[in-house]
Every structure is written in C-alpha cells, then in structure tokens.
C-alpha cells in the first residue's frame, strides 16, 4: 500500500480535506470521494473531454491528472456553474437550442464552454468549433452545441452591455 497524502482543495467554493493515494485520478476523487458526479468518465484516455473541469483557471481533463497534482487547487465543475433553480446561461442555452441529446457529454461541454467564453467573450462559429475541439459528442453532430454556445455568448454580452 502506498502512502496516503494529506490533500486540500477547493471544489465549487467549498474547502475539502482528505487523505488519498497520490495516484488517485482527479475524476475519481470528484466522483467517488466527493460525490460530485457532474464530470463524467467517457474514455478515461484523455480524448473525449467528458471529465473536463476548470482547475486554477484552466480547462483540464480530470482523468489525466493525479489528485496529488491538484493539491491546493481551486476546482470548478458543472455543479459550480448553475443549480436546478438557477441554471447558468450556457445551461439555459443548451436546453433552448437542443445542445444535448443523451446528455452524457454535456457537463464537460458546458464547463469547457464557460472557460472558452472567458477566453473569447464574442467568438465566431469557427472559434467555438476550434475552442471546443477537446470535447466529443456522439449524439448531436455538434451543430446545436455550437449554436447553443453562440447564443449563450450573445446573451452574456447583451447582459453585460445592459449592466454598463
């Protein structure tokens, strides 16, 4: 048995502290230890993006990170973006524009998209496709995902303008 490590991290604004083997993958920590099951395991081989979370401001595939690397980190998952009572603009947009079918890829899609819209608040369709290239969807054919993200961007920009 390998030595366990003392780990501290902030997940969706909540401080977490536990002992874990350093080899534990962050996706397993989130899903099995912290019961945060929004991030999914699609491929477990760094290809599909279903496990995407935001870690210290970066979009990261949490199946390709050891919990030890995330010690001290700030993590946001889909659960930290919106709630059933108050959906995130992106969640609303995905719902409105049929950006999902089975929904398996959706938490990763939306988590990545939320970061993409920080990087590029007013993206072109091409920029959305390029910026979402790390997330695979087996259902929608991407058309409506792109549409949803563009609609959310427009909505967020309009809200920002109205606030100014």
């Amino acid at each position: 048995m390998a030595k366990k490590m003392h780990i501290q991290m902030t997940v969706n604004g909540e401080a977490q502290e536990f002992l874990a083997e350093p080899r534990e993958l962050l996706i397993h920590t989130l899903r099995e230890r912290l019961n945060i099951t929004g991030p999914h395991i699609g491929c477990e081989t760094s290809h599909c993006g279903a496990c995407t979370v935001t870690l210290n401001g970066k979009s990261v595939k949490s199946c390709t990170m050891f919990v030890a690397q995330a010690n001290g980190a700030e993590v946001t998952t889909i659960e930290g973006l919106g709630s059933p009572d108050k959906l995130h603009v992106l969640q609303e947009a995905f719902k409105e524009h049929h950006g999902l079918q089975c929904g398996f890829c959706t938490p990763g899609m939306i988590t990545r998209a939320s970061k993409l819209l920080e990087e590029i608040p007013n993206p072109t369709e091409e920029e959305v496709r390029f910026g979402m290239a790390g997330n695979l969807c087996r259902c929608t054919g991407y058309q409506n995902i792109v549409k949803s993200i563009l609609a959310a961007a427009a909505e967020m920009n309009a809200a920002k303008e109205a606030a100014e």
Partner: protein
Amino acid sequence: MIPAAFEYHRPTDMAGVLAVLAEHGDEARVLAGGHSLIPMMKLRMADVPHLIDLQDVDGLSGITVEGGRVRIGAMTTQSDIIGHAALAEAAPIMREASLQIADPQVRYMGTVGGNVANGDPGNDMPGLMQCLDATFLLVGPDGEREVQARGFYEAAYMTDRADDEVLVAVAFDAPSGGYAYEKQKRKIGDYATAAAAVLLGKDGDTCTSASIAMTNLSDTPVWSEAAGAALVGTSVDAAAVDAAVAAMLGDIDPTQDNRGPIEFKRHAAAVILRRAIARAWDRA
C-alpha cells in the same frame, strides 16, 4: 486505468529535484504537464516509483525575447506560447505549430519541456526545434550543459538527456523570412500522420536560406539538410521544390501503423512539405 502506486514529490527548487533524482536513480522521473506520461502510467506502460512534479519549481516557466534571442522555460505550456504576443512577433512559427497540437485542454497542460524531452516521434516540438536550430539547456548533478536539438534525438524515447538530467529551457535565434508549420492529421487532437516545419530566407527572387524538418516519419524527428540545400540559390520554382521533396523522401523512414502504410505516409509527407514550402515562400 489505475496506475501503479508511486511516491509523489513536489520540490520547490531545482536542488530538490536533483536530490530526488540522485537518491532514486532511474526509479524517479519528473512530471511536467503529465499529458504524455500519465496516459503511459495509466496503461502501466510506464512504472514510476518516484514521481517528481515540477509545477512548483521556481524559474522553470516563462518566455523571454531579448536581442533577437528567444528563451522558453521548460514548464511553459502550449497555451502560454499561443497567448504570448512578443513570441508571436519574434517566432510566429511557434504559435502556428502550437495551435496544431492536441486540443485546448491538453494545450493548457502540455509543456515545451515535456514535449521535447519525451522523445516520442509523434511530438511536434522536436522537429520544430530542429528546424529553428534550437539549443536545449539541461541541468544535472555536474551542472548545466547545452545540447543542439539537431543532435538530441537518438531513437524513439531515447535522447541525449541522461536519466539524472532535467531540461530547463529551450533557446533559439528569432528566425527571419518566411515560415510554415503544416500538419496532416486524422482529426483535431491527433498526432501527425506527417508534419513539416519550414523556414525560408529570401532576397529578391532568390532563396537565401532554408531549414526543413519533418515529424512522425521516422523514429526521431528528421532535419533534412539536403531538402533545404535543394532550395537555396533557386527561385523556389517547381523543379527546386521537386528536388527538395525528393531529398526529404530520401531522409525519412516511416513505418506502417494505424495512420497508414508506408507508401501513404511518404505521399502525405510530400504533400505536406509542398504546402509548407509554398506557404513559407509566400510569406518570405
């Protein structure tokens, strides 16, 4: 997909890294972005009893452009490269190539140091570094030394770096003239079926210098001196390009794998190099 157990080290300076390497020898390995090493550990194709995370080591990341010399710290990510305005100005080929590596999530984690030290023939940076005639700065128990990128790669996963050495930075002169990084891949996020890095100097209608390197077409990157020589002194006309492509094809040695049979790879290499030369010449 659970890797074998390991002991995790997260030193805050290079002395700490070197101390763990000295203590544990080839049982220890450094971890940069982890996007080559972790997949291998999960598949249990790599067993690393002592993993040394470089993320907290001081002074390993950052890009400087000074007096025409570019220096990129080993822990600088592909995403840092893409976002760096002075680098995009001094060596736009770095940005062009980085945008063709993997996908946004991987580029947030993947580092220059990991990409060049890994020794995987599929990595894009090694060929690019050879094209730029970069120098790698290594540090080990006996201090620092420099190695030319063109002499660094020995075979797949075999490089001139000793097990107890750490790559600190890459450095090269900011190139002038035209540039292009062209890559054929099966889908976004895939490694190259064939890729070409090309730098061309131009005076009037004449090509004054040419550097050409190919990726994933041998068990190491291939800097084809002969392909470059075929262009210098010409106006990069059809005959010169044919000669450069023929010279390149004489230097590569692709193998058959899930990206296709040898003949296909040679065909793709030729197409990609033609495109890269045309684009670099156009920009020169």
